[in-house]
């Protein structure tokens, strides 16, 4: 018994230090893991958000096509010849749907942000690719997107920042 006690007193007891170092290491790893998880969460959200913006726009274009079919079936009951707002509203609705389609089509293709047009994927203005007018034409009943040049004035074009 006495021999055993003396050996324990003399030997270096490195266990507490080892446990200390190990727990610190584990803590460090857990911290790193947490950071990774948080970053991954935000990153995935960002990427998914970008997808939904474009998806939403495409869904809207599909919806408009559906509406267009429905509008063609509208029947105006009232036949008055003076200030017939039932007729005016119907004609305006037809126009609005066509304009909405033109707006969605050109917005989906314009991969930049400019003025009131804001694109989640591309928050920057891109003069190299998109310094041009979006022109939508109705050809054989289908909306077709084309572009036309911009007549520049005496002032250099630049991003408007406030």
């Amino acid at each position, binding site marked *: 018994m006495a021999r055993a006690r003396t050996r324990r007193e003399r030997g270096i007891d490195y266990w507490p230090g080892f446990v200390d170092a190990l727990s610190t290491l584990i803590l460090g790893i857990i911290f790193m893991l947490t950071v990774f998880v948080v970053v991954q969460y935000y990153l995935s959200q960002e990427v998914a958000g970008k997808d939904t913006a474009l998806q939403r726009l495409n869904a809207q274009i599909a919806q408009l096509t559906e509406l267009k079919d429905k509008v063609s079936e509208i029947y*105006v*009951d*009232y036949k*008055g*010849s*003076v*200030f*017939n*707002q*039932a007729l005016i509203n119907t004609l305006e609705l037809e126009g609005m749907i066509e304009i909405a389609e033109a707006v969605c089509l050109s917005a989906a293709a314009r991969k930049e942000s400019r003025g009131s047009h804001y694109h989640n994927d591309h928050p920057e203005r891109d003069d190299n690719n998109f310094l041009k007018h979006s022109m939508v034409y109705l050809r054989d009943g289908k909306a077709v997107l084309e572009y036309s040049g911009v007549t520049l004035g005496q002032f250099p074009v630049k991003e408007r920042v406030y």
Partner: protein
Amino acid sequence: MKIKVFRYSKDSGRSGYDTFEIVPVPGMSVLGALFWIQDRQDDSLSFRYSCRGAVCGNCGMLINKVPRLACRTQLADLTAGNCDIDLRSYPALKSTADWDIKTEILIEPLPHLPVIKDLVVDMDRFFECYRTIEPTLKPVDENPEHERLMQVSKVTELEEYTNCILCATCVGSCPVNGKSEGYMGPAVLAKLYRFHIDPREAGDGARLLAANTGSGWWGCEFHTNCKKVCPKGVPPNQAIGKARQELKNMGKAPPGFEK
């Protein structure tokens, strides 16, 4: 809630009143109620509107026997009696319809202007008269080198009249407009006075002389209905009074009006 609306159609020749039962929502204006009727009950109903915010002056009509903008008049205010205006009476305010003020809101076209359809009136006479006063700035110096600066006090004075949105509710409220078709009316005279006091114009009295007749400044009988109904707080009666005084001071008042 019941809304009683004047109807007229040239096609059918019918002239009378229709009563609609509407379900009001909080914050609903008279214009909102008209949209509600047009959307759900009768799409043959016609009325003028544009901005929906008391800026364009399109939706002037006679609401509960007071000329108002439909977009600026809340249904709740009408039923609660919060916006009653005591007007000097004239023939158009006399009861033409069987109308219960407690349960119904009565909507009629603006008086003193020909009705085209339902609540839509012919504004041509009003705007033709407006054109005759040349309602554009006629500056003394044609091409100044710098912008024309004005005193703040002058601008404030002008603003009282430039706030006019030409909705013609004052014309619909003016007893004189009701009895004499040739009378220029409150809005036009207020606008004419606004150019007279504009410091950028010559201020030689030419603007005052442009309406120095019995159908101009001197036609007014100061019922002050115009100021009471104006949705923008313009006081045409004040402009007319000042113009008359200035003409008298110039010794230019027409015979019979010198005093």
